[in-house]
């Protein structure tokens, strides 16, 4: 098992070579040439600089289609019609599984039939040259967004291909995304990704790294998400990453969301080394959306308003077609503009809501408790601490498909709609905190005249898609 230590240069080279040899397009990667390519990019395509110097939340959609020319067209449209500030390239599911052969088949089918046989852009198959064509063609910084447990080859190719931001991390792209990879394994994989980003950083190409904050997107308690962001931020920093964007997914309660984003920023500054520039990203609601574009626009609007108050550095927008499937370009651009309008109308307003500080305190207390438990269990080593914490359930993620997490934690909303914890499993928070949650949930149970149970959790999971924040019993009756 690796420790939380910087991968030595020779080891880096060894893995790098091995990785590049694992698939034909790997051979086109040349570090020196890549650094030169990045150096040739104009200032407005430098992801970290653009993000870190913005004075308003920047907007970024999700988007990826198999063919290069379609992807260029899609990104151009999102940039122009959607007024996106930052652009994404979402990778297909086969690539995420390292099934490059299948991705190749899908790409060829797409090329022949024009059908989108893949649910994203197979960057490995497009190779360094294809990626650079994309970077050259679009007029804004572009991030790789994926969900790949073993993203080493993807990183090698996309970094060399000119992408300057890379989403994911060993926990956030494992626990919510797969059940086929152990945590020890993904930590190793991501140490390489971060080390490679660090190598570019040393040469002046500050690759931005963005741990995936929303996790399973479904009622994730803020302190759990923030703890994982801190771990991934720390692991990345060890490997030399200097631009880190910590993420958080909207839960829909404005006070809790603003408090969480503030806690995320504060704790990020507190825990990450000074050499790292910390930024934050807010994801509009990542759980189940309403099956209706009009209602989806309401969800998006509330997200925009939350962003205007909390002022994260970046917002990842949703489209009104989220429920149904991958959105059309127009719907994707519409989600961006709806968000922009709300943010721009609200951001100059002084909107100070009571109770944010208290909620932030609670989140910070919980997070401190969790992250210190991780440190404790690691006995000086964060990798070990992380593994032990997940193994014991001291750290856990609700609705995790992965066996690497206990999945014993169950969240539910309180009477105000804030996400609390109903089932704790072995989560490392003390009784005092548990009592606060318990009291809040008891109040809700009381309001609803029913017991706290999985039924409540299930109702909450469906609530937003059914038009409410809280899954009250009569809500279900309506449907």
């Amino acid at each position, binding site marked *: 098992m690796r420790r939380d230590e910087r991968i030595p240069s020779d080891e880096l080279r060894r893995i790098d070579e091995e990785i590049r040899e694992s698939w034909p397009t790997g051979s086109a990667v040349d570090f020196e040439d890549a650094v030169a390519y990045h150096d040739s990019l104009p200032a407005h395509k430098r992801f970290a600089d653009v993000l870190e110097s913005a004075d308003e939340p920047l907007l970024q959609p999700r988007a990826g289609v198999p063919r290069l020319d379609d992807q260029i067209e899609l990104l151009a449209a999102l940039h122009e019609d959607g007024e996106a500030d930052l652009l994404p390239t979402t990778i297909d*599911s*086969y690539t*995420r*599984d390292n*099934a490059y052969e299948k991705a190749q088949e899908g790409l060829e089918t797409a090329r022949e039939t024009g059908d*989108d*046989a*893949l*649910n994203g852009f197979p960057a490995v198959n497009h190779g360094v040259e294809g990626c650079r064509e994309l970077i050259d063609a679009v007029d804004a910084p572009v991030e790789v967004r994926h969900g790949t447990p073993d993203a080493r080859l993807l990183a090698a190719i996309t970094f060399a291909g000119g992408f300057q931001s890379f989403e994911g991390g060993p926990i956030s792209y494992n626990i*919510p*995304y*797969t*059940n*086929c990879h152990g945590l020890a394994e993904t930590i190793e994989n991501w140490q390489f990704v971060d080390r490679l980003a660090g190598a570019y950083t040393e040469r002046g190409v500050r690759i931005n790294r963005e741990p995936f904050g929303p996790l*399973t997107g*479904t009622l994730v308690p803020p302190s759990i998400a923030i703890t994982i962001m801190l771990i991934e931020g720390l692991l990345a920093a060890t490997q030399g990453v200097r631009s880190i964007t910590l993420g958080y997914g909207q839960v829909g309660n404005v006070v809790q969301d603003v408090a969480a984003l503030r806690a995320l920023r504060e704790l990020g500054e507190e825990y990450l080394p000074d050499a790292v520039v910390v930024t934050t990203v807010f994801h509009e609601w990542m*759980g*189940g959306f309403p*099956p209706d574009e009009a209602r989806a626009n309401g969800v998006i609007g509330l997200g925009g308003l939350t962003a205007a108050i909390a002022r994260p550095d970046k917002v990842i927008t949703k489209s009104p*077609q989220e*429920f*149904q*499937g*991958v*959105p*059309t370009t127009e*719907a994707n651009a519409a989600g961006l503009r709806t968000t922009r309008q709300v943010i721009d109308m609200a951001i100059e307003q002084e909107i100070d809501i009571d109770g944010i500080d208290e909620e932030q305190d609670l989140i910070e207390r919980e997070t401190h408790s969790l992250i210190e438990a991780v440190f404790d269990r690691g006995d000086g080593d964060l990798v070990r601490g992380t593994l032990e914490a997940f193994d014991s359930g001291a750290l856990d993620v609700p*609705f*995790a*498909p*992965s066996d690497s997490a206990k999945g014993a934690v169950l969240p539910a909303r309180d009477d105000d709609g804030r996400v609390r914890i109903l089932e704790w499993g072995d989560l490392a928070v003390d009784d005092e905190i548990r009592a606060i949650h318990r009291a809040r949930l008891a109040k809700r149970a009381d309001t609803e005249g029913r017991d706290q149970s*999985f039924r409540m959790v*299930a109702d909450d*999971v*469906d609530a937003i898609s059914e038009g409410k924040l809280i899954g009250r019993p009569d809500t279900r009756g309506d*449907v």
Partner: protein
Amino acid sequence: MSNTVVLGVIGSDAHVVGITILEQAFSTAGFDVVNLGVQTSREEFAEAAVTHEADAVLVSSLYGHAEQDCRGFHEVLAEADVDAVTYIGGNLAVGQDDFERTRETFRALGFDRVFDSETDPEEAIAALRRDLEITPTEADRLTVSS
């Protein structure tokens, strides 16, 4: 009336929330549920169906690759001599599809019923009760339109 249902998410799809809800709903409705979890292969479905003598196999897919993942699914079941009712549900196509076309596609692949992602678990339960000829209860009077 202990009918057994095998449930799982096919392919490399890891969307677990839907089956978590389905598991609970089918259990509450009195079925024995074998939840195989996410990223379940065709073979794993077939094996579990044999082992547990499943009356029904419920396949979930959200991420848009259902069609590729389900090609050959019924052949694998047939080879293992599984004779269960088969349902599939979720977001079955990439993008903004016309669901009727999608339903036909999956019917042609051999599924007895095809559900979209707006499906309430109660609806699937009512359908299964009907298909397995389980004594009708209250819930059964719900319309089944799949």
